[in-house]
């Protein structure tokens, strides 16, 4: 089960993920990011502070946006990951493809 909250801060769209992302809830994550992009945000911050678990399908969602964001010059930064979640990203090598910040402050600097 995942709960997704969105709010805007300093021109950036902050998407907070609360709970677990598995195959079925990854669709909600995809929708949330697509909506943010559709609304014209070029700075997207994903708050993973309350993200307990992410499955390969969830990672696939982030992965699928990488090239599109590069083409359209949209910057996305993930921040606040727990060690366990970070490990999942690291094993797959996504930490090399995605921008991952320590906290919100750092994340804001990264998109600035």
């Amino acid at each position: 089960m995942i709960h997704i909250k969105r709010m805007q801060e300093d021109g950036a769209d902050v998407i907070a993920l609360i709970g677990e992302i598995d195959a079925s809830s990854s669709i909600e994550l995809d929708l949330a990011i697509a909506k943010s992009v559709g609304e014209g945000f070029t700075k997207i911050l994903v708050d993973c502070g309350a993200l307990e678990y992410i499955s390969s399908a969830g990672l696939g969602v982030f992965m699928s946006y990488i090239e599109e964001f590069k083409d359209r010059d949209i910057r996305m930064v993930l921040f606040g990951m727990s060690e366990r979640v970070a490990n999942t990203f690291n094993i797959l090598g996504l930490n090399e493809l995605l921008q991952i910040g320590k906290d919100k402050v750092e994340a804001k600097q990264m998109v600035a």
Partner: protein
Amino acid sequence: MRTKAITRLLFLVGVITWLALLFTDISIVFSASSSNIRQELPVWLPGVILNLYILSVFYYFKLKIERDDVLNFVDLLWRVFATGLVFTVISLGLRLLEFLMGSTRLTTNVVFKDLLYLVNLALMIGFLLMAFTAWKRLILYQKSKWLIRLWAFFEIGLLLSLLYNTFNFPVVEWLYATLLSVFVVVGLVLSGNMKWVAYLNFRQKWTSLLLLLLTIFYLLYLFYTNSALAESIGNTVPHFTDYRNHIFVLSLIVFVTIYSTFSFLVILFNLPTTSVFEQKLEEVVNFQRISQSIQTEQSEESVYNILLETSVSTVFADAAWLEVNSRQLNYKLFTYKITDKEAHDIITHLKTHNVKGVLEQSSDKTKNLSKHLASLKGSRFRSILAFPIYVKGENIGTLALLKELPEGFNKEMTKIVSTFANQAGISIENFRLMEEALQNERYKEELKIAKTVQKSLLPDVLEKDDDFEVAAFSESADEVGGDYYDTIRINDHQVSLIIADVSGKGTTAAFHMSQMKGIFHSLAQEDVEPDTFMVRSNQALVYCLERGSFISAIYFVINSQTKKIRYARAGHCPVLYFCADKEKAIYFKDKGIALGMVRNKSYKNFIQANEFEYKAGDVMVLYTDGITEAKDAKGEEFGYERLESVVDEVRSLGPKEIQDHLIKKLYEFTGTENINDDYTTMIVKFR
């Protein structure tokens, strides 16, 4: 067989007793009529013999008619009628004989008269008993406990009354009258049971009427003949077998006549309502047909046709149509005695005149819509009755019944057709559920096949070498999964190994897994470097993996000449490696991203080849995230540390033993063998 023999014996006894009766009675009458012969036989003897005759005939018919299960009502009436006919003809024949002989001394002699009388008496009693047994069957057709008791009382009482007659007790006037009136009253009460009449159809009723009428006629004739003869004999001699004070015979006469007359009248007055009863019966049959159609019919169409047919025949509609119009089905119009054009005309007419609640799919109001048709010119129909058909709350069609008469449908019909429509809806729903169940069953079979096919994609036998041995295990969460492992020998000193995990699970993952196998088998044979293997695999997969899907993998080349292993990790779970000479195990956490994540040439920047040496006793544990992420009841993951310590317990054993121990511990941890992800392990033991 035994019954048949007994019946024959009873018949014989009947004949003998009658002959004995004839002899005794005639000799008594003869001695009484001529003064010079002394009377030798006791006067009560013929009475006793008569009762014996009655008993034998009574049981004769009892066996003959009561045991015959095949007889229906009309057959029964026919039997009674036929017996009556034969007996009456015999009696009439005797009359004719008497008439032909003219008024001679013989014909006027009391002895001759007595002979005639005894023949007629035997015929009358036979006929009465026959009718009595037949009426018993009719009366007890729908029996209740109370009715059976009453009948038993009647029958036994009558038989006991024979005793009274036999022993010629001093005739007590009040007892005689009381007994007779009791039997008459009971007979009357029993005659009220006419339920069988309702089950006759129109034709059978007419036949029964005729048969009963003739039966009554025969009865009356035989009564008349007997009473006339008894009268004339009684005037001449003091003693003869007079039935006129015989309680049994009198009660029988009264009962049989009453029941015959009642039956006749009841059937007569039931004639006009027969059609109603028949219709009700047909409704029940129709209803059954619709209910049963679910089990027997092959398609929804047959259900529709049966609904149409039964509704029409139940309400005597002149025409009907069934319009099926739902999301799941194509538009269909089933018609009965009406052309498609006529039906469409009426539908359009109702639509254009904006008549609400007639054929609207949304409306569940069913009205008698005669007035709306009155304005339709050129149509022969003057009444319409329409019903929606619902399946799972969705209106899938409309049943419309038409009549050429105005106001042709009554409330009863409306109710019945509405029941039919509901039942048809249920039938169709059941039918669909069955179809779905069958379809699901088919899918399950398909998946079973897919499972077997996929199992065959995983190798049965793994490569072996003097330097190492491999064991592997894989299980899917669903029927098919996305985990893959394989080995292939490149040349005499090189073997390549792969373990891969497709993102997601189920059928899609299984397809990608089979692609991975194809790629592995085509690339590995070429003896490519592990990093090149990954780059080229990535290139191949870009065209088949959909957006968001990826495959994590590790590819090894084990060289037994150099004792070195070269490998590349593409986002797969890190290798767990136990060095034989060191106490601690290590996880190889090196660079490398999963296949399909970067879909351009830059992928080669994200992958690297690594190399290490192996020694005898080393253990290499490969696995998919299904193992490390398996959760116990509290939600805790199996994890890397537990994996390490579990393998550490048995690292000195062979690869198969290590694997079995690991899987055993995994199941112990999760508490189930149904882990919610595909999980695979591959253990390489060096020696």
